[in-house]
């Protein structure tokens, strides 16, 4: 009996040690449940592995588009105001060849999404995982099918009465204007890939052109702010004062001593960096209001100072504007609706609105 117990014990010890051996990291990590994998594994591949079953009509897509997409992308997906355009630049002929002709002839000043994207799976996955901009992953499967169908319809790839579904999406992919426009034959995917551009390390009497081909345009000199304030006021060099025209006089032949003392004088009074306070202006930036509203000018919606001017003297301005921001509004400034910003905290909306009504001072 005791021998028997010993054998059992020895066997179980052996078993345990094999188990421990097989698992390099005991007690680290745990199995993922099927529900967990389903919740996160949302990617859709070009062969449509991962695509949920379902369908959506162009009409449904248009309805979602006008409520949730048009404010950034324009009514016809053509807007260049907030993001680059989605629709445009493709032809029926492109759908036949699978190559977008405008990409080669350079006639289109800007490249739209549909001029580039070869795969409907990519569009579906993009909309499903990342749209709408301020509320990603909030669309239903039917809405994603619908919006995808509507985009394809705007590009005249599918007709007005089309229903896109998991059953016909592969056929639709075969109509994509740029489906043959991608190549992986290049040396930049693999570590050992072959470079396509070659230079030689010439050391002396190397061939060069005498002229400078391109210089910074004058208009760009100060476009990034004063470069003097983007370099240290001490050290080997200084930043150029780009708020003034270029200096033409050659550097003096003397040592820099006096100059250095002068510049060091600037260094003694450090520039105060504004503390990040949650002012209305800062909040407007934080919540990306400035994507559609300029300080003084219309981008998609009206400029902040334009709003302030319109509501000047209106005692109910703040509460009315609060409502428009929170719940959305349309018709006050033009055809593009202001989408509801219900995800923004009430206090933040109040601060932003107060700041706008107060003149939107930067």
């Amino acid at each position, binding site marked *: 009996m005791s021998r028997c117990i010993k054998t059992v014990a020895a066997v179980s010890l052996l078993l345990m040690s094999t188990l421990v051996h097989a698992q390099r990291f005991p007690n680290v990590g745990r199995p993922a449940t099927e529900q967990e994998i389903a919740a996160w594994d949302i*990617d859709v591949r*070009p062969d449509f592995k991962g695509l949920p079953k379902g369908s959506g009509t162009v009409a449904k897509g248009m309805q979602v588009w006008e409520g949730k997409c048009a404010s950034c992308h324009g009514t016809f997906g053509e807007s260049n105001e907030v993001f680059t355009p989605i629709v445009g630049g493709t032809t029926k002929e492109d759908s036949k060849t699978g190559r977008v002709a405008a990409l080669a002839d350079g006639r289109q000043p800007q490249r739209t999404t549909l001029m*580039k994207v070869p795969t409907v799976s990519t569009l579906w996955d993009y909309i499903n995982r990342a749209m709408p901009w301020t509320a990603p992953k909030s669309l239903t499967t039917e809405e994603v099918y619908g919006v995808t169908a509507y985009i394809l319809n705007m590009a005249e790839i599918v007709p007005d009465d089309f229903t896109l579904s998991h059953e016909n999406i592969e056929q639709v992919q075969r109509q994509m204007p740029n489906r043959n426009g991608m190549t992986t034959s290049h040396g930049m995917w693999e570590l050992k890939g072959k470079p396509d551009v070659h230079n030689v390390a010439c050391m002396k009497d190397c061939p060069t052109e005498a002229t400078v081909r*391109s210089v910074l345009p004058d208009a760009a000199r100060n476009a990034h702010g004063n470069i003097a304030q983007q370099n*240290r006021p001490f050290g080997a*060099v*200084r930043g150029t004062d780009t708020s003034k025209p270029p200096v033409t006089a050659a550097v003096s032949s003397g040592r820099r001593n006096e100059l250095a003392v002068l510049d060091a004088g600037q260094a003694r009074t450090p520039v105060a960096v504004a503390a990040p306070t949650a002012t209305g202006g800062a909040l407007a930036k934080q919540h990306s209001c400035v994507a559609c509203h300029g300080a003084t000018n219309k981008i998609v919606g009206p400029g902040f100072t334009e709003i302030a001017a319109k509501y000047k003297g209106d005692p109910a301005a703040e509460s009315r504007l609060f409502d428009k921001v929170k719940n959305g509004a349309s018709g006050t400034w033009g055809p593009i609706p202001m989408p509801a910003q219900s995800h923004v905290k009430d206090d933040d909306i109040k601060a932003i609105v107060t700041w706008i009504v107060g003149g939107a001072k930067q």
Partner: protein
Amino acid sequence: MSESNGKAGRIVRAPEHFVDPTVAHEITQHGLNAARRGFLRQSFLAASAALASGTALASASKMTDGDPNILTLPEHSTTLGKPVAANPYGVPSRFETNLLRRESPGLTRVNAASVSFTPLQGLFGIITPSGLHFERHHQGWHDIDPSKHRFMINGLVKNPKVYTMDDLMRMPSVSRMHFIECGANTAMEWGNVAVPTVQYSHGMLSCSEFTGVPLSVLLEDCGYDKKNGKFVLAEGADGSGMTRTIAIERALDDVIVAWGMNGEMLRPENGYPLRLVVPGVQGVSWVKWLRRIEVGDKPYATKDEAIHYIDAMPDGMYRQYTSIQECKSVITTPSGGQRLLDKGFYNITGLAWSGRGKIKRVDVSVDGGKSWRTARLETPVLSKCLTRFNIDWTWDGSPVVLQSRAIDETDYVQPKINQLRAVRGTKSIYHNNAIQSWQVAASGEVSNVQVY
């Protein structure tokens, strides 16, 4: 000990190492005796005398005998400084207000899907201070609670698993220094000169020491399918749900699932608490706020592989899955927007890097590429990491064009912009690794130019 009664932060005196414990006790009880007081008083008198003579010297020397910064002792030499831990998390000097991450106006219209650039023009060595690491977000950034962050591996694996930060951080980790460069770095310069300084031309580039678990260890732990697993998909937990395809050979090589950056946790803007580190590959594949790795048998053609981050070629084709950051270098001082105050000696300094390995050599030209001298490489010289180079230069005051040209261990030589354009045209947007030219005018102003 009971007297501490809950007072937070009460500090117990450390033992007096230089005084015998019995003497220390005696002094505490009875004070100093005459002999000990005498010793201290003498030292004090000597110190006061020194102070007095210093003051006398300073006041007597007004503007005559030299620099008042030397002759008049400043406040910091004559007063008590601030105590320890006055800044429990240290911050740069109040004088260091100019070198900041900055946006390039007009580059993007939505600042939650934009870029802020690292101020390379004023940084030293190869490590980027974490607060100045460049930013690129596709749908804004969040500060994620690490106790709620989860990391999943699924797809072609025997055991799909979920790991918490607790799980990951108890595993065997590695720490490695690597550069990260956005594929669109220097994008604005494909057609012509467009930006004034190296911050905007090359500042989507940073370099840090990253700490984490090799992805290979985690893939093994889940029993990935060695026969059919050809690619992995990395996915972020942010709104954009950033997804990128990585070939399995790359994933098993030196990719790290990282939480550490320069000795501390990742900054939120850089993916706190977890990001992928894919050495040598463009930044977009270094998925931030990493939530999932899926093993698959085909590439995924995600939004950032089939709409964005594709390289437009002159014949209208797009190159898909361009990933490796080829060998590149740039002079950071003197560079565009800087000004030389006088003629004479300067240390030309800059950075070189390659996604295919180590930097082998950097040459510098001060005559627009006609002749070249080989620069000093500072250590360490690491694979897929920034390498700092320096070279002596005496400026005679005449207009010149400065360039640097890097060569990596595969003997690839960084190309000229015209060589790059001859193959890839001017619409590529991505992967511009051309030799950068800085023109120094007789006035000392340095500006961005392109020469063939």
